[in-house]
């Protein structure tokens, strides 16, 4: 039985990658289990400068999903490099994916250059789709020209593979995927959160201080599957499938749609053991479905 898959620059023992923003800098989860069992993980999005993020409440809830408007709170890329990743190294000996956000192209490039110095970073994940940062971010993800330009310039600024993380809040995600592939992206991570809101019935006000937030969890899975399936038809670089994955069956479904690996987001928040449990469950589900090698099922729904 083979669970290992390959992403540009990273050979993974298994396709399970905790998603950015849902796994901190990893060491918090090392209290619960040995995080070296993971394929890899994507750390909390960092930006050139430290960010304090949005006002609270930053969290809301909805049927089978949650909303967040963290606003990219992070200590800044220099502190991530010097403090967070050093803490991480004590408990983790694999490569990590560096999730990078920004408001301007220059910010992204500078942050990527800094984080590329780390020997523990295996790839850059450009978050061009964070819906909670007012100044920018979302703009990059909804316009194919800017997305392509950003990708190209970031590729020039680092030797690491660059994965571009797409926003689902667009009319035509395939068009953006194709544009970033042409601009040199090594892989595509998708999807980031949908934009949503909830209103407090007692006060009549939006629950989130930021009004809108990113909607994630099992509720969004069909949208993620569809978009991965659609983009798989249009690009030839690998896709990291993200959105609502809660168990090993969901992993297989996402790989059938076209994903080479998957990221687990919200599931880690409601159950700190989620990623471990999925890894543990995977061989048994593969057996049940008659799967010997995960590499053979990538994109099976297209056959």
């Amino acid at each position: 039985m083979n669970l290992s898959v390959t992403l540009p620059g990273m050979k993974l023992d298994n396709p399970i990658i905790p998603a950015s923003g849902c796994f901190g800098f990893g060491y918090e989860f090392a209290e619960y289990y040995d995080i070296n069992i993971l394929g890899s993980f994507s750390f909390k999005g960092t930006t050139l400068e430290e960010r304090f993020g949005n006002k609270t409440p930053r969290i809301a809830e909805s049927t089978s999903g949650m909303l967040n408007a963290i606003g990219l709170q992070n200590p800044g890329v220099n502190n991530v490099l010097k403090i967070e990743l050093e803490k991480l190294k004590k408990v983790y000996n694999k490569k990590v994916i560096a999730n990078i956000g920004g408001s301007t192209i220059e910010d992204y490039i500078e942050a990527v250059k800094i984080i590329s110095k780390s020997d523990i970073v295996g790839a850059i994940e450009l978050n061009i789709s964070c819906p909670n940062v007012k100044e920018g971010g979302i703009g990059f993800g909804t316009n194919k020209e800017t997305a392509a330009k950003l990708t190209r310039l970031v590729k020039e600024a680092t030797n690491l593979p660059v994965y571009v993380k797409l926003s689902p809040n667009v009319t035509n995600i395939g068009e953006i995927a194709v544009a970033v592939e042409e601009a040199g992206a090594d892989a595509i991570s998708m999807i980031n959160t949908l934009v949503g809101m909830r209103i407090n019935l007692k006060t009549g006000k939006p629950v989130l201080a930021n009004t809108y937030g990113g909607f994630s969890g099992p509720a969004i899975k069909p949208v993620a599957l569809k978009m991965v399936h659609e983009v798989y038809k249009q690009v030839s670089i690998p896709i990291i499938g993200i959105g609502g994955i809660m168990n090993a069956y969901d992993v297989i479904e996402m790989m059938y749609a076209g994903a080479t690996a998957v990221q687990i987001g919200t599931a880690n928040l409601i159950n700190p053991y989620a990623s471990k449990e999925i890894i543990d469950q995977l061989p048994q589900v593969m057996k049940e479905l008659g799967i010997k090698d995960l590499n053979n099922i990538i994109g099976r729904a297209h056959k």
Partner: protein
Amino acid sequence: MSNLYTVLSNELIAYKTYKMVLHGDTKNIKAPGQFINIKIDHPNTFLRRPISINDYDETTLTIIYKVFGEGTEILSKTKRFTTLDILSPLGNGFTIKETKKQLLIGGGVGVPPLYSVAKELVKRNIEFDVVLGFNNKYDVFLEGMFRSLGANVYVTTMDGTYGYKGNVIDLIKSKNLYFDYYYACGPEKMLHALVKEDYVGQLSFEERMGCGFGACMGCSHKTITSYKRICKEGPVLESSEVLL
């Protein structure tokens, strides 16, 4: 951080207020004021519900909660012997200080965690009084439990239907209560009002939580020095660091 707890009892003790005793792992609880995070099986309650530990012994822990929305409503209907998926213990809890005369200040569903504090103070032979604030007489609970620990207990209600009339600060002032340190838990308004006074102590805050164990940054709370995650570096903050 053990996961499965069995409901031993779940009973109404005041207006919409329930006391639930759970059987399960309690050995990691290290301070009064820590909380647990309960998974409630319903599509509409996707996130866990944080509730303070009211009391615990070697094999059981007790919580007291008020029915507020859908999650606590479902919780209130949970039957004996149901198994609940719970993360426990979470947060820092109160750090007991060794001063002469202390005050516990609780408001509404902020009262429960103070009972563990009281027990700890008794154990350490620290003198303390208790001030409890509620909206009205139907909301009052735990008064007797505090009294049975031998403390002076002052109850006040906003509408004066039980005990004194007014908020906890009104009461502290009108009774001229002396204390050199306090532990408080209650609505944010009450906590902020306390911080504005000259008293020194610790306060337990609430924030909407994505995870409850430090992973999502959902519960960040600005303090005078930095951001703290209410679920991890909180819920208890020092009065000196609270930003108003």
